[in-house]
């Protein structure tokens, strides 16, 4: 049995014991400490922390979740690490992100399914009433849920696009992959009335509410979903701080949710830049990536914004580099990687 102590970003110390045979994530859960995680198999990076001292054994994982550089710097994945001595770890999240109960599992009914631009769909689910959780959809804007197909054959995580609400509604935008199990279901079999298992809310990609800086969102494709959720929440709170949205797609017909964006623009001090990388038709918006649009905007900004970026790993890396070179501190850039599934 080893002693593990985890220091959170806001300075709290969380301590638990770990058996050599347990992953650190399981060991924490045995002590009713639910640390941020998602895939639990080394695929998503949600459980990445830094090792300050002590040895671990790392089982196999994907380099999308933990890059070679990160591993060299001492980072580990809690779901793939077993203690080989007492450990001191440093977490990239606040104490508030640590749960004292398992992630809720609830049932929801599919109530709407429709195309969202070419190549993606909009899905709307309705939570069933539940004795423990009631019927509300409570989450923090920007979080994701894991959906399980009605037949249990596949699980995938998707960001929520709506704001938390008391009606129990969940809205998601999902990119259809050519051969994905979940995409096949959505394309071929999904029908209104289907019941899906929803595990969530999960994830730390949420607004830093205490920060008074302007908020800029840099998103690619269905990475728009969490940004929409946060912007809708900002609108609900009648928060009048300036916001910007840089929304990028490859082709014009991939744009979606433009009606929602229009509504948000009418309600908030929100400047939107729609970015199309390869416009094949008449396009009067920005030509290029959202990162290029961000670079332009940052060069003339009078105040340093907080930057929220969501999309494929390359978009995140490019945004971080651009933002940092324009003087945005590393800890003012918040991101969520989307990996293809």
């Amino acid at each position, binding site marked *: 049995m080893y002693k593990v102590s985890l220091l959170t970003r806001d300075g709290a110390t969380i301590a638990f014991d770990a058996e050599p045979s347990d992953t650190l994530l399981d060991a924490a859960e045995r002590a009713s400490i639910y640390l941020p995680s998602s895939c639990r198999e080394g695929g998503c990076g949600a459980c990445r922390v830094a090792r300050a001292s002590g040895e671990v054994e790392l089982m196999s994982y994907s380099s999308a979740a933990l890059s070679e550089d990160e591993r060299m710097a001492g980072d580990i994945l809690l779901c793939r690490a077993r203690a080989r001595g007492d450990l001191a770890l440093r977490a990239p999240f606040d104490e508030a992100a640590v749960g004292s109960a398992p992630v809720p599992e609830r049932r929801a009914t599919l109530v709407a399914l429709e195309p969202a631009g070419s190549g993606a769909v909009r899905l709307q689910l309705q939570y069933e009433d539940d004795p423990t959780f009631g019927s509300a959809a409570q989450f923090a804007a920007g979080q994701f849920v894991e959906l399980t197909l009605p037949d249990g054959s596949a699980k995938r995580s998707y960001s929520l696009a709506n704001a938390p609400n*008391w009606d129990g509604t969940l809205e998601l935008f999902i990119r259809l992959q050519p051969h994905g199990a979940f995409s096949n279901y959505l394309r071929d079999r999904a029908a209104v009335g289907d019941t899906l298992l929803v595990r969530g809310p999960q994830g730390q990609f949420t607004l830093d*509410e205490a920060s008074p800086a302007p908020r800029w969102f840099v998103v690619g494709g269905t990475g728009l979903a969490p940004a929409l959720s946060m912007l809708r929440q900002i609108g609900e709170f009648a928060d009048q701080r300036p916001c910007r949205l840089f929304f990028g797609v490859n082709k014009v017909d991939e744009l979606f949710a433009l009606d929602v964006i229009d509504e948000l623009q009418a309600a908030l001090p929100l400047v939107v830049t729609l970015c199309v990388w390869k416009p094949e038709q008449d396009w009067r918006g920005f030509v290029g990536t959202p990162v290029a649009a961000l670079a332009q905007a940052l060069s003339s900004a009078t105040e340093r914004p907080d930057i929220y970026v969501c999309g494929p790993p390359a978009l995140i890396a490019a945004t971080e580099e651009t933002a940092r070179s324009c003087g945005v501190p590393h800890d003012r850039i918040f991101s969520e990687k989307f990996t293809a599934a």
Partner: protein
Amino acid sequence: MFCYQCEQTYRSDEGAGCAGAKGMCGKDAATADLQDILLYVCEGVGQYLHRARQLGATDIEADRFILFAFFTTLTNVNFNAAKFVELIHQASQIRDRAKALYENAARAAAKIPQTVLGPAAFVPASNMAGLSAQASEAAVRKDAAILGEDAVGARALILYGLKGVCAYAHHARVLGEERDAIYATVEHALDMLAREERDVATLLDEALALGRANFLAMEALDAANTGAFGSPTPTSVRVTPIKGKAILVSGHDLKDLHAILEATKDKGVNVYTHGEMLPAHSYPKLKAYPHLAGNYGGAWQDQQKEFAEFPGPIVMTSNCLIEPQPRYRGRIFTAGPVGWAGVRHIADENFAVVAQAAQALPGFTEDAPEKTITIGFGRDTVLGVADKVIDAVKSGAIRHFFLVGGCDGAAPGRNYYSDFADEAPEDTVILTLGCGKYRFNKHDFGTIGGLPRLLDMGQCNDAYSALVVATKLAEAFGVGVNELPLSLIVSWFEQKAAAVLLTLLALGVRNVRIGPTLPAFLTPALVDVLVEKFGVQPLGDAKSDIAASLARAA
């Protein structure tokens, strides 16, 4: 940031004050700085309003804004930096208006308007980064080197007392009770703070003037509450949950509670009070709602645990809010002056969404065993049995009254108050108010001559009731309040308590015991003045303090 306005302020060998990245209450440095700037701009508003008033011109909307702005800066009220940026800009517009009011009034009186300097001339930056850079100009102790520590302490006493006055006056105002004399005093005090006044005697006089204004504010609030909802009557309140959908309402604002009761009428939702909302059960017009089901939990410092366990939405109508935990952050609402970044705020008194949230959340799944307490001994009830009380005192059945009341807090040493209540002899009556009572209000104190020995007079907002009772009893016995067999054992935590203390001093009430510690902004010299002039006493240990109180009265 630098803040030392409340009892829990960070204390070390070098002195007291929260000066790090966060105060003990959870207020971050950015918010603390913005609060200072807001009050500084309000001082500028006060400079103009004070001058305009001397020329017969007033702006009641500006006065109302000042009450609200000050209320937001009390301990445990508003932690939302963005809200303060908004309020600062509003304050600066109101100051422009007050300036025009003053200058027009001066011209109308054929006088040349003065150029007003200090806070009146301060130009707040347009964004957060700029405002942070200006914080030192508005800091509480900015002129300590010039003014001297005693003057700085006395100015802090005025500033914090003023916060309390504004909070009470705001509570009264939302129910339609306003007193022009309060506004005049507030403006005067703001003008004094804006000047570099350093004469301690002058400053203490101003503090006592605030104490008198606070008596008016408390009287207005009492009139507002009883006018709207009737006079409190003794009421037995359930303190355990009932099966069903539930809403929890905390804070001090009875009007908000009333609006919530209306919004949830006939919807099968039970409304519970928390903390200082407990006295609501004793108001006839509020207790007439059958779904005002009971009281849940204790004082404010327990809320993180209690709110996490409450299975429905929670509404904070005023102080005291502490950092909402993730487990209930999505289902807590703020109203009025209260705020926390990322927590839903209801600005228009429309609580329909709270009713909706209650329906969507699980509620209590079973009844807990029934337990009750009795509350509702406001001034009318106590004075209604004045004859009995007077007889009991004359016959010796009641030897002494202790008012053990005020704020609760998390600091060690607060068991003094429960020890005091528990140790008070059988032939004494304990009056209580404020959330400090949660330390002992579920204990059984028995009765004296048909009266309960523990009489709960209500919120800290109901201190007026206690003063009226004391004054009337003194009249009946033909003595002064200080000659009554009555001792005041007051616990302070935040700035309303500072205002009440100033009121007690202004009314000549002596020998008040305050604790658990003395305010950090009072220098030893200022404490000496309070001790000498007013007999103010720090706490000793409960047993000997009881003995001393009884001996003095004998």
